[in-house]
């Protein structure tokens, strides 16, 4: 229920705003101000903070939905090989068309690094594809 309420609130848009008083590290505030002013990464430090907060909350909601789905449908839970293939496909990575190679790389890397990410698998598969010096 909490997750659904968070999701509803995220859907409500950003027309209504509120002043808020948050204590954040001074150095972080100054870094954000500098990044906005000198690098133009957002229209304001407030916009930067809002975007980052929204992205984090969206990730939390998505992961909660996925975790709930995996609990109900264990066969839908992707393994590391599935995730490496999906990451390659979304990025148009050259190895996206070689799922067998990615699955093999996932098995190899998971042996020594059980917390490996899909990007780690892609990197390992790329390295394995290089000709030996």
């Amino acid at each position, binding site marked *: 229920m909490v997750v659904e309420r968070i999701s509803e609130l995220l859907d409500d848009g950003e027309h209504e705003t509120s002043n808020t008083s948050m204590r954040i590290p001074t150095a972080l505030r100054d870094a954000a101000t500098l990044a906005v002013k000198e690098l133009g990464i957002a229209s304001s430090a407030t916009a930067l903070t809002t975007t980052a907060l929204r992205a984090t909350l969206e990730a939390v*909601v*998505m992961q909660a*939905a996925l975790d709930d789905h995996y609990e109900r449908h264990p066969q839908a839970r992707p393994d590391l090989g*599935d*995730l490496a293939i*999906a990451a390659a496909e*979304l990025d148009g990575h050259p190895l996206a068309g070689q799922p067998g190679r990615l699955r093999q790389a996932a098995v190899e890397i998971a042996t020594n690094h059980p917390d490996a990410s899909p990007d780690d698998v892609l990197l390992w598969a790329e390295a394995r594809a290089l000709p030996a010096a």
Partner: protein
Amino acid sequence: MTHLVVLDNEAVQALRDPGHPKHRHVVSQAQVVASRKRRAVAIQVVVPTAVRVEAGWDRTSPAWVFPNRLRIADSPLDTASANTAAGIRDRIGVSVADSHIGAVIQSASDGQITVVTSDPGDMRRVAGDKNIIVAAI
């Protein structure tokens, strides 16, 4: 710039139905998106509303609760999109839903665009001059 991930009809169908042969494949892609959002990567999954119509995705229906919870945004068929989509349909003769996908692609800003689709050929055609990544399912 935001990485835009656009779903076609079959991707939507596969996501909804745990018994669909491509369900785990599309769920894997959703999982990668969720993980990237968690790492503050700018990435957004969208569904053109005409695709939603074709797929029968009614956001008020309990049958669609799982896709509804995945923060997949509607890309509406507004006046400008309808004009672009009509032009695509007239030139290429693809479905209304695929024409709307083309309009979404062509109106997107210059970030990375990935289309999750069972029909890579049509997606490349509706994209026109726009450079896209096709994730074939």
